[in-house]
């Protein structure tokens, strides 16, 4: 009698755990709203708890205000180190759609790896390192009140005689630091810091990328706004050796994006389609040898700018997901021989599909 009661309880417990692991709990997390840093941190813990065999968190640095910079590592566990994809969101505080996208991306892959053979294969062969909010101090500050909403930089105080706060983290990396597209005035939004890697947030990313540089195949950094896919480098006179390939992959991603909701994303180097800049994380990633390094600038093109309405979160994330996956799948298929056949097939299918859909749009 006791045995059967126990076994019933055990079965119930397993079923309950199974329901939780299916992500039933996270159906209550609203991915179509912007979330505070506290909510995002709690959500990260939840993702880890609910998906223990594929998700774990790692603290890899501290912000100026002493917060733990945390990423989610997602993929099947492996005895040997795996190749990996890095994604960070929220280097710039006011670009709220970016952290929203990182959360959406995590939700999508965790929700599909068991049923989607393609995602399953990605989990097998790759690890995803995803940082939903890199510039936590800045992000929290942008939530403070209406006057702080448009903050961009870190929250480190100015040095020397500077009375302004913050360094532009995306000008602070050791990648042609200080050469172009920066300001030496510490009150400027593109102030690149007193020295390269003066910011602990940039240092944290640098340390992690350096420690994993042999594993990392792909570096994606998510920003807004502009509807752009940027390839290295930010300096007008420097070309990445695989520029042609990066452009092809970027253009395929833009086509994948357009197929979702018809939005046009322009592809090119920053000096071509946006502006020259130096010290960016994308450039640093490429310089240390991570072959595929892209900046995504999500919606929109200036109507709402940084204040993208919440009813656009879902469609923006959907299209950006297809864009990111287009890049990730290409890289995966190129690197994992077993799927060599599917490379051609997938590419052909994608191209034909988007040709058909864009022909209809036209």
């Amino acid at each position, binding site marked *: 009698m006791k045995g059967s009661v126990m076994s019933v309880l055990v079965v119930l417990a397993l079923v309950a755990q199974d329901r939780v692991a299916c992500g039933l709990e996270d159906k209550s997390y609203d991915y179509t*709203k912007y979330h505070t840093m506290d909510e995002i941190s709690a959500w990260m813990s939840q993702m880890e708890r609910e998906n223990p065999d594929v998700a774990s968190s790692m603290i890899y640095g501290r912000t100026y205000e002493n917060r733990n910079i945390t990423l989610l590592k997602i993929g099947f566990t492996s005895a040997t180190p795996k190749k990996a994809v890095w994604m960070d969101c929220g280097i710039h505080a006011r670009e709220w759609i970016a952290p929203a996208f990182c959360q959406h991306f995590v939700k999508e892959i965790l929700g599909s790896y068991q049923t989607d053979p393609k995602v399953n294969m990605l989990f097998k062969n790759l690890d995803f390192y995803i940082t939903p909010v890199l510039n936590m101090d800045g992000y929290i500050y942008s*939530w403070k009140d*209406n006057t702080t*909403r*448009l903050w*961009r930089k870190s929250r480190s105080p100015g040095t020397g*005689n500077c*009375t*302004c706060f913050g360094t532009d983290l995306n000008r602070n990396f050791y990648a042609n630091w200080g*050469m*172009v*597209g*920066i*300001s*030496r*005035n510490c*009150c*400027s*939004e*593109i102030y690149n810091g007193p020295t390269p890697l003066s910011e602990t947030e940039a240092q944290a990313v640098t340390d992690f990328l350096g420690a994993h540089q042999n594993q990392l195949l792909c570096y994606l950094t998510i920003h807004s706004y*502009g509807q752009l896919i940027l390839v290295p480098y930010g300096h*007008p*006179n420097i*070309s990445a050796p695989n520029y*042609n390939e990066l*452009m*092809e992959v970027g*253009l*395929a991603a*833009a*086509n994948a994006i*357009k197929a979702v909701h018809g939005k*046009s994303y*322009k*592809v*090119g180097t920053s000096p*071509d*389609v*946006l*502006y*020259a800049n130096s010290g960016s994380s994308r450039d640093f990633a490429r310089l240390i040898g991570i072959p595929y390094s892209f900046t995504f600038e999500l919606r929109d*093109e*200036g*109507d*709402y*700018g*940084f*204040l*993208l*309405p*919440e009813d656009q979160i879902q469609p923006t994330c959907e299209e950006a997901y297809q864009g990111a996956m287009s890049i990730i799948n290409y890289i995966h298929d190129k690197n994992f021989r077993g799927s060599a056949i599917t490379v*051609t097939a997938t*590419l052909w299918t994608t*191209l*034909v599909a*988007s*040709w058909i859909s*864009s*022909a209809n749009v*036209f």
Partner: protein
Amino acid sequence: MQSVIRTHLESVSSHSCYATELSFINSSTRRRSPPEWIMKTFCSVWLLLSLVELRPALPVSQETPLACRGPADPALQQPETPEEMDTTGDLEPTHYPARRAATVALHYLNTRHGSPYRVFGLQQVHKASAEDVAAGGRKYSLDFSVTTSPSGSAGPALRCSAEVLFPRTERHTPPDVQLNCEALQQLNSTAEDEAFYQKYITPDSAVSAQYLPDSYGNMSEDMQPFWRLARVAASFIMLRESSENTEFNMAQVASITQQESSEKQLMLDYVVLLHDLPSQEIIQWKLLASWSPDSGVRVLQMEWQPRCPHATKPPN
């Protein structure tokens, strides 16, 4: 394999207007500008000199922050390294020089034809070219399409052509725009504009609001026409402040206060926040705008409002 991809991308591209991107890949020429080190040396020297100049008689501790200096101050509007000189001739439509010039044309279009129910946005640049002009300056010729909001991408796109002249003068001079759009007169938002006008021209109307949209990008449907009016009014400022090194959008309306109507015009006091892409700066302007369906939008007063950490007096 690569040529297969290219051929297919080409066929896809011509439909999605990335054909020029392809030729960029295929030509495999990266523009080689004059010896880079000459530019670098020049820039470093220029930079050093300008830094020296920027140290006035004020003691260093009282040096005003960047945001408290005038908007005409080059250090505010542009990053401190001068932009690469573009080649004149045909421009890549997806690249920023063509887009910036088209944005200026858009600002101009909005000042002339914008209303609470009609704000123009850039859909796409089809063709662009630029040439230096004898008087000093660069003239852009543009062929582009615009959308109107509300109705946005659902509505018809208008085809426009424009010539945008950016003068090269020591102190900033606003660009000059010549513009032609097809079927401009046939746009019919006038019924909604008229209804909006009648609703708020009443003597006791005193609309006021702050932060449109709010931090979440949301705003009530009632406030949307006021937000669009702000975009049109802001276009006067953005047009005036534009150069080849700026790209302005209105980031947010900080506040709107309706004033007493005057001479059958709606009178609106706005504080708007403008965003400049290259410098990433947020620039605050206070303005007084009038509007009626017949007269269109006019900006009667405008005042730059520096966001200074201390109560520093703005220049002039």
